[in-house]
């Protein structure tokens, strides 16, 4: 009984700490910004302009991520998710590669969804592979061809896809060793 209470307290404490930590992070960032603006006042306007431009761009992506999270929670049970993207999954690699390539918006917009999937048992290697493949942006391919040529673009894309799987395997292996599994 005592042990159960202790465990609950730790769980509760952990939750409280987590719910505060993100606000501490935002507070520290705002504090750093204020110091920077006091030291370099001319950086305020361009920073604010850049901030508002990104914000405008990510609002629709934030909505997409929210809808995806809702749909995954509603339609897919954690058991199904683990079957397709868990430790024993074989089709996880192509899923991680394709979803990584077609996903849009800045990388940090996907952290909440990935965090949710990670808690549900999705393999860390797949998450890493997804994040690596976000580097391949289909709409930007004409631009990279313009700057660096067609051969460079094709070779780089293929090498990056292979590297993404390699990174996923390394991460799985190292995290498994650290866990002692």
């Amino acid at each position, binding site marked *: 009984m005592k042990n159960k209470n202790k465990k609950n307290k730790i769980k509760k404490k952990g939750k409280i700490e987590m719910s505060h930590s*993100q606000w501490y992070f935002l507070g520290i960032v705002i504090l750093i*910004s204020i110091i920077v603006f006091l030291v370099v006042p001319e950086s305020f306007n361009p920073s604010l302009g850049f901030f508002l431009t990104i914000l405008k761009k990510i609002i629709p992506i934030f909505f997409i991520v929210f809808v995806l999270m809702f749909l995954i929670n509603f339609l897919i049970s954690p058991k199904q998710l683990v079957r397709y993207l868990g430790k024993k999954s074989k089709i996880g690699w192509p899923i991680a590669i394709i979803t990584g390539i077609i996903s849009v918006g800045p990388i*940090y917009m996907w952290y*909440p969804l990935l965090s949710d999937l990670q808690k549900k048992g999705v393999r860390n290697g797949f998450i890493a592979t997804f994040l690596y493949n976000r*580097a391949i942006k289909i709409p930007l391919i004409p631009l990279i061809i313009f700057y*660096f040529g067609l051969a460079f673009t094709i070779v*780089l894309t293929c090498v990056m896809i292979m590297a993404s799987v390699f990174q996923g395997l390394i991460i799985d292996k190292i995290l498994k060793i650290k866990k002692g599994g």
Partner: protein
Amino acid sequence: MDKERLRQALAKASRAMYKSLPIVFGVIILVSLVNTLVPKTFFTILFQKNIWIDSFIGSAIGSILAGNPITSYVVGGEFLKQGISLVAVTAFLVSWVTVGMVQLPAEIMLLGKKFAILRNVSAFALAIIVALITVLILSFL
């Protein structure tokens, strides 16, 4: 339709979004600051015209800078014009989109310290390896 399941799914998604909102805002502020304070041309003077050192420097610069990949193509194109090797520029392009020093605190908070550090360190090393392999393959074409 299962109304209770619908309500639970909506509550879970809202809670997760609410928890990550301050982190995302913090990262956007940091990205804006770095983008404004660090002029892209400053980094050109760091390159040593040595393929190994330059690929390391290219990967390091790409890891620190953040923003739209389009910017990395433009900056990478400028680096090439200034005589920086293709290996260094490729390492720069790859690390720009795969390593995120600015986003690292947010990644640690949401995906875990071990995972975030391991992912970024391995992505940094892989940027150099990917650059070397890409340029090697291109030399045979």
